């Protein structure tokens, strides 16, 4: 990847942030981290990432959705993916589009799938 794409990881679990960042950087992405929805929105405005990976339950149960809505208002076309341990349930009951997400990845994340999606986005 000649021009590393910037990814913002928003998750209140530092261990998850570290391991996801290690995977992304091993395949050529540049990854930044925020530990709350509020900090994530601030980082989004400061860093201007190409892709966002965001948890749902952080300082509030719906902190991820609140953050996604604010990020969407700023830059409507940026892909924002929900990475959540309740991802499947969220998709079934609410629908990720209604929450401002481009897609949902259930934890533990299938990285073969996630990296394939991100790779396509990085080329586009």
């Amino acid at each position, binding site marked *: 990847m000649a021009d590393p794409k910037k990814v913002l990881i928003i998750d*209140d*679990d530092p*261990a998850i942030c*570290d*391991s996801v960042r*290690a995977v992304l950087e091993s395949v050529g992405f540049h990854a930044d981290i925020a530990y709350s929805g509020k900090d994530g929105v601030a980082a989004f405005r400061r860093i201007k990432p190409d892709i966002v990976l965001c948890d749902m*339950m952080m*300082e509030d*149960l719906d902190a991820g959705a609140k953050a996604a809505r604010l990020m969407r208002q700023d830059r409507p076309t940026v892909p924002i993916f929900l990475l959540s341990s309740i991802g499947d349930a969220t998709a079934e009951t609410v629908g990720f589009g209604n929450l401002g997400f481009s897609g949902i990845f259930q934890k*533990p994340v299938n990285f073969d799938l996630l990296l394939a999606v991100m790779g396509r986005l990085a080329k586009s």
Partner: protein
Amino acid sequence: MPTLGEIFDRNPEPDAFRASVESLNGDFPFDTAAMIALGEAYFRRHPDSSHDRDRASVLIGYGLVRVCAVERILRNLSPSSRAFFRAVFKDPAKVGPLAERFSKEILSADLAAVEAEMTGVRQEIEGIPKGPIKERFVGGISHLCTVLYLVRMQVKKMGGNP
């Protein structure tokens, strides 16, 4: 043998719980019932609700799950391989540098053994009813699964067959 729930009731502080579980060398019940019992014991001490989610308590929950899962999935490895996986679970950025100490054959075989154990753990977690206990277990193992993916990537780089 005490259950994980009983161990937590007697050792609710994370470091004490870790030490107690690690002393068992992975030899403890870790089926769905044991997971639910541990979760119930944890939530008695760290109650959660839809309007009150305390980050520190959540991270303690993930930590308890990780202690148990790590002991379980590493139980059949050599001491040096256990040390490797413990180190990379703690700091995923060390996968590359630390993996160089192993041959691709050994790392590949160890990874296969650990992933087989993790598959068993995940099957037991699937049996937990949807709710906060399941969320802590899923969130807890997610980091471990991501690190195992990193190790698999490393084995591929070394020319092995993960």
